């Protein structure tokens, strides 16, 4: 009798708990969007860039972009060469080599390289930002800053967002341009006479919608790479043992968002 009544109570409690979990989930995503919008506005307002903040932002750009640029460029160039060879050889064997260049530009520059850059920055800097912010949050550094009269959002968090956004955009731009050059060499060799046809194909692929979509996608990648780990870190209760949980949640959510952005961009373009 007592058992059944406790089961009954449990059954009543489950929908309430589900509802609470759903509300918490919604609130968490709301915080992500809110922080993202706030960071974007602060990044675009010139008042953010006072002397000290400029130094912090420059340091973030140095760590997330400058240090990884050569290695990432090398890596993406190698991957591009492999893909270009595969595509060129396959299309030639099927007698469809006239479509090789367009396919390469679409696959490499529009889809693979921005995603690769975002994943690379997420792995290298996103995880680091997540851990660092979580530890600062648990240690109470932000409260200390606030007490010292300094805005932690402006001083510590927004520079990280700007740093990773610049990093993703810069890595994607450098690797994209190198992939375009490699695609030209892969399809036409070192002859300059393919330039007219190449220019035409590039112009054909990059119509205004596609170009705008690529810019927007890369920018969203850049924002997500910093915003989602930071939000996940700030959400964790202030206990040291929960720091790994914050990193885990932040990284999983980040990958989910990256895949969603990529999927949405593909859907808009091809469906």
């Amino acid at each position, binding site marked *: 009798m007592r058992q059944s009544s406790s089961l009954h109570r449990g059954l009543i409690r489950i929908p309430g708990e589900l509802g609470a979990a759903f509300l918490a989930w919604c609130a968490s995503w709301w915080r992500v969007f809110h922080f993202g919008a706030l960071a974007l506005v602060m990044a675009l307002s010139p008042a953010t860039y006072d002397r000290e903040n400029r130094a912090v932002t420059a340091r973030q750009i140095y760590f997330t972009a*400058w240090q990884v*640029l050569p290695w990432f460029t090398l890596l993406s160039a190698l991957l591009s060469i492999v893909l270009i060879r595969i595509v060129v050889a396959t299309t030639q064997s099927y007698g469809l080599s006239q479509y090789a260049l367009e396919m390469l530009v679409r696959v490499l520059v529009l889809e693979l390289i921005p995603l690769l850059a975002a994943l690379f920055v997420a792995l290298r800097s996103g995880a680091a930002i997540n851990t660092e912010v979580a530890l600062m949050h648990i240690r109470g550094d932000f409260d200390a800053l606030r007490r010292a009269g300094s805005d932690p959002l402006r001083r510590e968090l927004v520079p990280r967002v700007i740093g990773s956004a610049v990093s993703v955009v810069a890595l994607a731009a450098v690797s994209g341009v190198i992939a375009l050059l490699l695609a030209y060499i892969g399809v036409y060799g070192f002859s300059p006479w393919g330039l007219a046809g190449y220019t035409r194909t590039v112009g*054909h692929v990059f119509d205004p919608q596609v170009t705008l979509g690529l810019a927007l996608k890369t920018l969203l990648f850049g924002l997500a790479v910093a915003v989602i780990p930071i939000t996940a870190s700030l959400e964790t209760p202030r206990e040291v043992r929960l720091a790994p949980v914050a990193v885990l949640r932040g990284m999983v959510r980040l990958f989910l968002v990256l895949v969603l952005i990529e999927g949405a961009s593909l859907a808009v373009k091809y469906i």
Partner: protein
Amino acid sequence: MQPESHPPPLIPHVEFKAAVVLVLALALIGGFLAYVMYARGVFESTQRLVLVADDSEGVKVGMDLTFSGFPIGRVQRIELAEDGKARILIDVPSKDARWLRTSTVFTMERGLVGDTRIRAFTGVLDDPPLPDAAMRPVLRGDASAEIPHLVATMRALLENLERMSGTDSSLNTSLANAQTVTERMKGRYGALAGVLGGEDNARKVITALDRSNALLASVGEVSAKLDRIIVKADERVFGTAGVMDETQKTIVQLDSVLRDARDSLKKADAVLAEAQAVGANARAATTDLAALRAEVEASLRKVAHLVDEINRKWPFARDTELKLP
């Protein structure tokens, strides 16, 4: 990997390096945008060409118009006109517009694999250039649309072939007949037997030929005799004191006789002229005679009138007869 924020480690030229990354990214993006705009023909002056098609299926914005395999224009817009036809608006860069002339023909082809292609064919490159905003019809060649027609034609063709090659077809019969004829030709009388349909007929023809040969030989002899006769006749007719000689003399005499006759005729002519003059005088005399007669008639009427007067004035006289002088 991320450094501690407090205290920040000292990094040489950190702001410069950040600026380098930013400038590099911005320069690459800006350069790429400029290249894409150049590739899309933003900086080129273009002229408009409007192609009118029954069906714009497969045509996409951004498609190329090719001339000899080189792209010379790009589809900018596709719209449905008021008359239900598709209007394909194409921008042709001014430097490539020289390939398009007033006599240029535009075709739209749809292959089994790959995109629809719009092509321009210019036969005469000396024709006047195509004006801006020119409207031209586009001829449609659709490989997949041609297939049913092709299959139907092929089937008809194959049926014809089958009918021609059947056992009782006319072609087969003709071949059999040809075989019979050639069989006959192989015989003793060769092609003649083939043509005439049998060896008997051929033999008759050959006999007839032999006889004609004999006949021709006797005709030859006859014509030799005839030759000799003709030679003799020639001598009799055209020789000295022959028929022709005598005839010539007679003709000379006839000539003098004729000349005499002509003189006599001239004289008769003169006589006739005089007779004509006499006739004319007689006609004049006849005119005078008419006037005389009128006068006589007038005198008679006066005399009659006078007699009537006398008769009235002389009532006793019973003899009213008047003796004319």
